[in-house]
């Protein structure tokens, strides 16, 4: 990648991170203030002396909560992701395998000109890897034990180079933030949909009383429906958001990895091995971190095909396409001695 491309990518990632936080906070504000508005309209017709909902407590609380969570996700999202996967940090390598991993990470730090990231090992037998962190000075690379067993030195180097590329392109911050916020949204909407079920049954009892506020009735129903729908659709929307940001950058990271190692064939081999061993990576499903990984940890079949449905649902581009692109790069490099930017 040329410098101009790199800066453009870094800038776009910074902007997307800000937009993501804004959407997240606005969504919570809508949920909170929407509830306030419904309560206000419902109680506005009530006789004096009854409760009137004037001060938007829910909206203020929800917005503050969202700001707090976004801040937490921004500051310590990486820690939460690593904690959720059950990874442990490799501080002093003891076995030859660990020593080799430590060496490879150091090598790739040199090749990319970045500080050496912290290394984590995920106790899972399925081969996979991901990078997380806030910036290049606070970055983490995690690999599964299965990856160390499955790949040879060159292939492991290629995978680490791919993760280093995510760190250098500032993908890690956006993706970590996304993982943290998607997780929060899922929990909130689960809780909220339970509360709607509960609230709905209690409201039906009082519906006969609120006959007189029929001038507001239509508005309330519309608001209520919009509100409930947006709460229920929150996890789906956040998933789509995660999908949209993660696929294009996999190709980019593959190309950058080839630039670092000057060995695109090794990454193609590694992807092939990871693909053929594709059983779901359990440790990485919990974290809401599917889009962080080098290969989809869900073991979904859609990633193996190109197509409109696959494009919509997969967090990763099809393996076959990635491998084909890398093979083409390897061929061109072998022929001309110049590493192509991308194919």
């Amino acid at each position, binding site marked *: 990648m040329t*410098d101009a491309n790199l800066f453009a990518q870094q800038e776009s990632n910074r902007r997307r991170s800000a937009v993501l936080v804004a959407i997240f906070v606005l969504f919570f504000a809508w949920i909170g203030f929407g509830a306030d508005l419904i309560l206000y309209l419902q109680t506005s017709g009530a006789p004096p002396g009854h409760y009137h909902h004037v001060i938007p407590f829910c909206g203020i609380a929800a917005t503050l909560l969202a700001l707090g969570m976004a801040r937490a996700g921004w500051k310590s999202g990486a820690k939460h992701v690593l904690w959720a996967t059950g990874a442990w940090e490799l501080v002093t390598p003891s076995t*030859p395998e660990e*020593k*080799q991993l430590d*060496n*490879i990470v*150091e*090598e*790739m730090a*040199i*090749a990319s*000109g970045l500080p050496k990231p912290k290394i984590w090992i995920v106790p899972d037998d399925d081969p996979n890897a991901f990078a997380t962190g806030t910036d290049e000075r606070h970055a983490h690379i995690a690999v599964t034990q299965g990856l160390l067993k499955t790949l040879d*030195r060159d292939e492991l*180097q290629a995978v680490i180079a791919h993760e280093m590329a995510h760190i250098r392109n500032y993908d890690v911050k956006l993706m970590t933030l996304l993982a943290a916020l998607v997780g929060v949204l899922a929990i909130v909407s689960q809780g909220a949909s339970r509360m709607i079920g509960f609230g709905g049954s209690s409201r039906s009892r009082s519906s006969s009383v609120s006959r007189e506020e029929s001038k507001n009735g239509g508005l309330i129903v519309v608001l209520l429906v919009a509100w409930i729908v947006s709460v229920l659709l929150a996890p789906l929307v956040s998933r789509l958001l995660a999908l949209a940001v993660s696929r294009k950058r996999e190709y980019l990271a593959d190309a950058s990895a080839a630039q*670092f190692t*000057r060995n695109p064939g090794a990454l193609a081999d590694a992807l092939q091995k990871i693909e053929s061993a594709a059983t779901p990576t359990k440790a990485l499903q919990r974290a809401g971190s599917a889009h962080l990984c080098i290969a989809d940890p869900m073991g979904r079949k859609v990633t193996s095909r190109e197509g409109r449905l696959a494009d919509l649902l997969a967090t990763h581009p099809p393996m076959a396409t990635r491998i084909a692109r890398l093979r083409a790069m390897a061929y061109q490099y072998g022929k001309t001695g110049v590493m192509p930017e991308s194919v």
Partner: protein
Amino acid sequence: MTIVFLIVIAVVVVWGISAYNGLIALKGQTTNAWKQIDVQLKRRHDLIPNLVNAAKGAMNFEKETLEAVIQARNQAVRVASNASPTGGGIKAVADAEAALTQALSRFNVVVERYPDLKATANVSQLQEELTSTENRVAFARQLYNDTATSYNVRQQQFPWTLVAGFAKATPVELWEIEDEHDRDVPQVDLSMNPKT
């Protein structure tokens, strides 16, 4: 008229300052990348005595191979201390390191003949260290060459070439590898499998 003239002067001065700073920043990056090479070369030089010591006992009858490695290493250490991108001497370092690489690959060929030696945990550990060191040197060189190339190109391109004198920017030497074959990282894979 004077105002237009002043504005033109101001624009030229501002551009000159930013171009100057850009060149100085690139120069700094180049020096930095060279320091990274220096660190990795030092690591390589420190590693070799350990490797030789570990192998010495079992390789009494291969004295000259070990001697060659040690001599190449000592020559490389001597040359490395007085080279820098601005001060020159990079060609000498590249040659000395190439000689060391050759001595090491001969050493590796010899080690392959002694399965007992190969099986020693100590030696296999050192082999991994050696592989990693070779890679580190190669990647540091790659980074240096990329940075130095953009520095060299920038200071010769048209508008920048006007301020190159002020920034004391002169083209720096790249770490060239003469032989296409030398591009390959030396094989320190000791398995007896036939090469694919």
